[in-house]
């Protein structure tokens, strides 16, 4: 079972730590409480970044620090190689925010990580967080708040907005996983169902989806098959998009009757999920649910 419950002790390395994104996000992750123990970069001249030791390879970094998680902040064309290196070094959690990973590379990466039993979150993800503990990636602090919602999202920005509005109203998250908007990815919605079903801190599920792909439909099937009992809420973007038109994410390409807003809404509703069509309605719906419980 995939268990994304990292904490403030989980030792994390950052691949590409001497790059612009690597530097910035290492600093922000550490400020949030993440235990960044090292970085990896081929740049010979830099031996540390903001006091964090920089290693020449993942293997060296893992050997010296005992890291079990890595956030890879490298270019799209370098990502597959970076992942191979991390898996070979024994990393168990791999978060890859990079956008634009070639789909054929993603297929190879998926097989690689699954065969090795590594949890891969990404690509094209803002990452994941256990609010109040640690975050791997760059989910905005303004949206993070410890609370009862298990949040899984295909869309970064839309989840920031939903998370922020709910946090403002006092409702936070148990664990937040951005699975990313790419069609072929490491961790998919259904993979997270067993964890959220058994996690004691998760009282309800929030799903942020968008048109295209099969993730929401597959999730609906799994929720039914696993007899998921907790309340579940969903918001899906792209209701008014024209068919066959890709908006941003390649995954938002609607192929024929698959992946349409209506298909997803229906599938989730049949699995007992309450599906909302605006942010405002979603927030009010969730708030009234928790109010009724008290």
């Amino acid at each position: 079972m995939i268990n994304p419950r990292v904490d403030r002790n989980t030792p994390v390395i950052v691949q590409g730590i001497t790059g612009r994104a690597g530097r910035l996000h290492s600093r922000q992750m550490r400020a949030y409480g993440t235990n960044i123990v090292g970085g990896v970069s081929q740049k010979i001249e830099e031996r540390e970044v903001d006091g964090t030791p920089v290693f020449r390879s993942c293997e060296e970094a893992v050997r010296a620090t005992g890291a079990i998680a890595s956030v890879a902040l490298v270019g799209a064309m370098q990502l597959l190689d970076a992942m191979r290196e991390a898996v070979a070094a024994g990393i168990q959690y791999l978060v890859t925010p990079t956008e634009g990973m070639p789909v054929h590379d993603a297929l190879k990466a998926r097989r690689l990580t699954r065969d090795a039993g590594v949890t891969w979150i990404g690509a094209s993800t803002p990452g994941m967080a256990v609010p109040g503990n640690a975050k791997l990636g760059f989910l905005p602090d303004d949206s993070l708040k410890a609370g009862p919602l298990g949040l899984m999202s295909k869309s970064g920005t839309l989840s920031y907005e939903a998370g922020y509005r709910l946090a403002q109203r006092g409702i936070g998250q148990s664990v937040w996983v951005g699975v990313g908007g790419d069609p072929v990815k490491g961790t998919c919605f259904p993979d997270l169902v067993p964890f959220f079903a058994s996690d004691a801190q998760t009282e309800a599920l929030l799903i942020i989806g968008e048109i295209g792909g099969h993730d929401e439909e597959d999730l609906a099937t799994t929720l039914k098959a696993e007899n998921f009992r907790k309340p579940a809420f969903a918001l899906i973007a792209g209701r008014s998009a024209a068919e066959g038109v890709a908006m941003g994410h390649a995954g938002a390409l609607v192929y024929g009757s698959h992946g349409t807003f209506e298909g997803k809404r229906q599938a989730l509703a049949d699995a007992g999920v309450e599906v909302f069509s605006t942010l405002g309605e979603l927030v009010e719906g969730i708030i009234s649910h928790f109010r009724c419980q008290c």
Partner: protein
Amino acid sequence: MYLIEHDAKELLAEHGVPVPAGCLLDDKVVFDGGLLPPGPWLIKGQIRAGGRGKAGIIREAVTVAEIADHARAMLGTRVKGQRVDAVRVEQKVSGAAEAYLGLLIDPAAGGVRVIMSPRGGVDIETVAAMHIQSEVSPPDIESLCACVRRLAAAMPGVMANALRDAGERLARIFLDCETLLIEINPLFVHPDGRWAAGDAKIVTDDNALPRQPMLRALLDKRSACYPETALKARHGFDYMVVDPAGEIGLLTTGAGLSMMLIDELRQAGLKPYNFLDIRTGGLRGETTRLVHVLDWISAGTNVRVLLINIFAGITDLGEFTRLLVAALPEAPRLDVPVVARLIGNGLPAARKILSKAGIRLHTDLDEAVAEVRSHIEARTSQSHSSA
């Protein structure tokens, strides 16, 4: 990028796949009989959608005069929401059976799905499931070819050899060109075993473009045909006009939030003009990207207001608003009121900068939308009173 049939067939032909001889006529090309294969011909409107035959843009011609008539009748018309900008004229194939062959990325299975059927053609959806064979393969050439051979072995008569040969060739192209989908329907199979791709649908991976020189060259040659991919390859972000008659220009970031905003505006009876995922992280301290977008939005003749919606997770709103205020005068053609809704990092600095520029800042999206509505209503009543 979803290739038009002509480009897909050229790509296949370059990789040794037999296709019926043909040529492309765009709306400016004077008909050139020299390129023409022997008749009779099919005249096929080049839009990126299925069901073209049923939509009336695949027609037969026996004389050269008929070719010109059909082409003129189709060119410039709109079918399935797309303009027919070109037609492919190709030699009509007769006396062949129609099979089906498809390869596509299967995200849930994490592999390449190969689909084969001895019956194909326009009614493939109604072919009984028992005739359609399908299997998922790992994404390497040995596994894919083995998968093709297993499926083809179950096909009847001459179909077996033809589908095996075609499948193995397509498997190589699928991997070499990093496609997401190759679908040949119909695959013509002659009684003597010869075969050819009657139609071709190919979707390539935009993310792989930097290392696919052949596709990159195609995109350069025919950028007008693939505007979204060309734009992204050139500028590094996504922009699309969603309603040419739209009244609200959108300056937004994030695909999901931008789509949601379009949904909500439409639900509220408002008319957004464009979709945009500008990726504020990619601005890199320059106004270039913003000026491009503002300029493109100014092409919308009905645009009456610009709505900015940025949730700044990492972006610094102070820097963003500095760039915005610098970019607005650089795009003077967009002369409309600006409504800004910003939230996140650097909000206090952004507030000061916008207030100096006379732009009101909202942190609540609903309030920003209310201001957008008031601008549109004001403009409408203005134009009524002046009329």
